[in-house]
C-alpha cells in the first residue's frame, strides 16, 4: 500500500516477518499479518503492508528478534538478545511490578489505601521493556495505571507505597494518591487520571529537549520522552492532535500504546473503526509498529530502535504493544465482561514466566538466582508497606499549600500563620 510518505526518507525494505513461527500466538513484530488472538473472532480486517520502518542500519539485530520466537531453538543460540546482567535486571523489575501490585490489592482490601486504584498485572513487559532503556533525565508520562511505570523509572517502592497510603513520605507528599505519581528526581511527569491528558504534556516535554539541543546548543541533550496510554485513548482528540504536532516538529518522543483490548467494559474492537492502532502513525508521518507486549525481549528490541530514533533526532514513533491486564480495570471493577477463555489465553503468556523460561533455557540464570531475586523483592515490598504504615499522615496545613506559587498568597495568612490555624477554618469560610 503506497503510503503518502513513500517519498520520505524511510527505507522501503519491508520488515522481515517470521513466517516459520510455530507457536501461533507468538507473533513477531507484525506489519501485515494479524494474529487471530489479537482480533478475537473478527477476521474481516485484512491488512496490507503498512508502515515502513527504517531498519537499514539495524536489520541484523532485528532478525535476531524473530529467532527468539522459536521456542525450540537450541540453547547455544548465536545471538542472544540480552546479557545475564540485563536479563536479571529485567526480571527483577518485572517481579517488583507484579509483587507491588499484588500487595496493593491486599492493602486495599484491608482498608489501608483507598480511592480508585488501577493495577498493572500482566502488562509489566511494556513498562520494563521501555523504561529500563531510559536514562534518569529522560521523561515518562503515564496514565492512572502508573504504579509500575513509577517503579521502573526508579521511584523507590517506599515512596510509591506511602503515596498510595496518603502519607507525607509519599512521592507527592500524599497529595495525589494512586493516579498521580510524580517525581522530579526521576523525571516522571505524572500519572493522569484523565485519559489522553498526559500526551500533550509529554509532547511539550519532548519539545523542551529538542529546544535545548538545537536552540540553546546543549549539544549533548538527547533526552527522550515516553508517553504511555491505552487503547481507549486512541479514539480521543488529544491523541491525534499530539501525533500531528510531534511529527510536524520531529520531536524526540515515543508514543507507547498499551493496548489491553478493554477500556473498562468497552472492547477495543467495538469502539474503534480500525482497531490497528499502529496504522495511525504513518497517517501522521511517523512509523507505526505493533509488537507483542507480553514478551519483554521483543518490546525491548522495538524500544531500542524507537528510543534510538528519538535520540538521534529523527522524530517520533508510535508503538502499539499488544498486552493484557490480568485484573479488572480497577479494584472496584468486578471484571465480569471479559471472556474467561481470553483471560486464560493471556495468562498463559505471562511475561514473567516467559522471561524466566528464556533465562533458564538459555543458561543465563539458574532457578536459584531467580528465586533469590523474588525473595529480595518480597522483602522490598514488605519493607515499603511497613515504611508507609509508620509514616505520618500529612498535617492539615498541607491542604492549602501549593495552590499557587506564592505560599503567602494562600497558604499563609497575613499574620504569618497558616490559614488553617485561623479559628474561622472550621466554619468553612476560608476566604483568601
Amino acid at each position, binding site marked *: 500500500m503506497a503510503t503518502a510518505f513513500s517519498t520520505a526518507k524511510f527505507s522501503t525494505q519491508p520488515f522481515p516477518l517470521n513466517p516459520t513461527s510455530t507457536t501461533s500466538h507468538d507473533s513477531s513484530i507484525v506489519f501485515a499479518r494479524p494474529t487471530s488472538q489479537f482480533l478475537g473472532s473478527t477476521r474481516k480486517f485484512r491488512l496490507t503492508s503498512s508502515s515502513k520502518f527504517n531498519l537499514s542500519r539495524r536489520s541484523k539485530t532485528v532478525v535476531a528478534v524473530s529467532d527468539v520466537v522459536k521456542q525450540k531453538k537450541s540453547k547455544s543460540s548465536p545471538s542472544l538478545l540480552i546479557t545475564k546482567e540485563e536479563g536479571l535486571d529485567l526480571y527483577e523489575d518485572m517481579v517488583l511490578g507484579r509483587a507491588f501490585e499484588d500487595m496493593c490489592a491486599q492493602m486495599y482490601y484491608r482498608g489501608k489505601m483507598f480511592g480508585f486504584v488501577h493495577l498493572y498485572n500482566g502488562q509489566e513487559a511494556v513498562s520494563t521493556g521501555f523504561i529500563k532503556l531510559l536514562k534518569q533525565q529522560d521523561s515518562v508520562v503515564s496514565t492512572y495505571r502508573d504504579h509500575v511505570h513509577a517503579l521502573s523509572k526508579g521511584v523507590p517502592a517506599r515512596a510509591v507505597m506511602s503515596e498510595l497510603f496518603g502519607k507525607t513520605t509519599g512521592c507527592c507528599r500524599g497529595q495525589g494518591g494512586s493516579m*498521580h505519581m510524580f517525581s522530579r528526581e526521576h523525571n516522571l511527569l505524572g500519572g493522569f487520571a484523565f485519559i489522553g491528558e498526559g500526551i500533550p504534556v509529554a509532547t511539550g516535554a519532548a519539545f523542551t529537549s529538542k529546544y535545548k539541543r538545537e536552540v540553546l546548543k546543549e549539544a549533548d541533550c538527547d533526552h527522550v520522552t515516553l508517553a504511555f496510554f491505552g487503547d481507549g485513548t486512541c479514539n480521543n482528540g488529544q491523541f491525534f492532535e499530539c501525533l500531528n504536532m510531534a511529527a510536524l516538529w520531529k520531536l524526540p518522543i515515543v508514543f507507547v500504546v498499551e493496548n489491553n483490548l478493554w477500556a473498562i*467494559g*468497552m472492547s477495543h474492537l467495538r*469502539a474503534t473503526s480500525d482497531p490497528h492502532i499502529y496504522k495511525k502513525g504513518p497517517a501522521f508521518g511517523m512509523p507505526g509498529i505493533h509488537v507483542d507486549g507480553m514478551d519483554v525481549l521483543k518490546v525491548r528490541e522495538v524500544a531500542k530502535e524507537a528510543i534510538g530514533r528519538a535520540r538521534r533526532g529523527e522524530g517520533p514513533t508510535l508503538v502499539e504493544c499488544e498486552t493484557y491486564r490480568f485484573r479488572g480495570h480497577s479494584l472496584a471493577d468486578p471484571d465480569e465482561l471479559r471472556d474467561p477463555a481470553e483471560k486464560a489465553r493471556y495468562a498463559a503468556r505471562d511475561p514473567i514466566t516467559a522471561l524466566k523460561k528464556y533465562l533458564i533455557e538459555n543458561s543465563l540464570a539458574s532457578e536459584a538466582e531467580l528465586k533469590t531475586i523474588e525473595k529480595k523483592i518480597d522483602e522490598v515490598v514488605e519493607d515499603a508497606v511497613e515504611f508507609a504504615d509508620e509514616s505520618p499522615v500529612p498535617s492539615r496545613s498541607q491542604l492549602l499549600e501549593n495552590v499557587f506559587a506564592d505560599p503567602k498568597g494562600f497558604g499563609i495568612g497575613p499574620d504569618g500563620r497558616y490559614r488553617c490555624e485561623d479559628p474561622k477554618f472550621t*466554619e*468553612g469560610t476560608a476566604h483568601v
Partner: protein
Amino acid sequence: MALRNIIGKRIGNGIGLVGRRSLSTSTSDVENRNAKSMNLYSAINQALHLALETDPRAFVFGEDVSFGGVFRCTTGLADRFGKARVFNTPLCEQGIVGFGIGLAAMGNRAIAEIQFADYIYPAFDQIVNEAAKFRYRSGNQFNCGGLTIRAPYGAVGHGGHYHSQSPEAFFCHVPGIKVVIPRSPRQAKGLLLSCIRDPNPVVFFEPKWLYRLAVEEVPEHDYMLPLSKAEVIRQGSDITLVGWGAQLSIMEQACIEAEKDGISCELIDLKTLIPWDKETVEASVRKTGRVLISHEAPVTGGFGAEISASIVERCFLRLEAPVARVCGLDTPFPLVFEPFYMPSKNKVLDAIKATVNY
C-alpha cells in the same frame, strides 16, 4: 486512622438520614400510588426506561452504558431497546456531546452520559459554544432542546481530584442551558424525565454519593417534576438555608442540631440552578431575614455567590446578617484531606449560629 473514622462517620450519617426520612415535605407533588423503595441509580434507570419507551427517537449513549454503566444507571436499556438506541461511544467527551447536539438538532432526544462530571471539561466547549447558542444563533430554525447530558458529580469519600468535582458553577454562567440537580431518588426520576422532555438543552448532575445510599419510595408510573421551581423541604423561621444535591442531607442534619439550640431553620432545595427560582428563596428570606448557602464546590465563584448577590439585591433592607456561604475550600479537590475540605455538618452548624447571633 482518625481520618478514616471521619470518612466512615460521614457515610454513616448519610445512610441514616436519607434512608429514614423522605426529604420532601410537600404533600402532593407526586401521587404515591405503586411506590417502591429504591435507590438513586434505580430511580434514574427507571426514568431512562420510561423516556426511551415513550419516545421512539430517544437515544442513550456514553462510555460503558451498554452493560449498565459504571454506576448501573443504564442497566437493561441495551437489552430492551437494542444497540441502535443504547450504545457505547469511544472515549471522547467532546465528540460525545457534539454528536449529541447533532442528534438533537435533527429532532431526536439525545441523552448523553458523561462518566464523571470531572470529565466534562473537554465537552465544555461544545456545551457552551454550541448547545447553549444553537437556537439563538439560528434564529430558532434549529435547536438542540432534545439534548440532556447526565453526569455523576460530587464527593464520594475517596474520589480524589478527578472523581469528586462539582462543576455546576461553570455551567450556571451560560445562558441557553439549564442545570438541574436532584437530591433524592424520587426527585431524580421526576426531574430527569422533565429534563429529557424539556425543549432546552439540560445538564443533569447526579450526586454520586447518593447512588446507593439514598433509598426512598419512588412511584413506578411516569411522572414529571417542574423545573425552575425550588422546594421548601423544611419549614422554619429563623434562618433560610439554600442548597442542592447531596449537600442537603448534611444541611438537614445541621438543622436538626440547631433545633436543639432553639434555632428554627428553613431548608430550601433549589433543584434547578439555572434558571433558578428566585421568588421562593426571596419569600423565605423575607420571612426569616437570614440566609446561608452551602455547596461542595469551592466557595470563590461558586453558585452560592450568585444566590448571595441576588438576595442582597432584592432583600437588602430585610437582611439581619450577612449572607453566609459554607462551601468547599479554594483548593483542588483533595484526596486525603477530603473531610477537612468538605462543608461538613459542623461547619454549617457554626455558620448557622454565627449568622443567627450576628
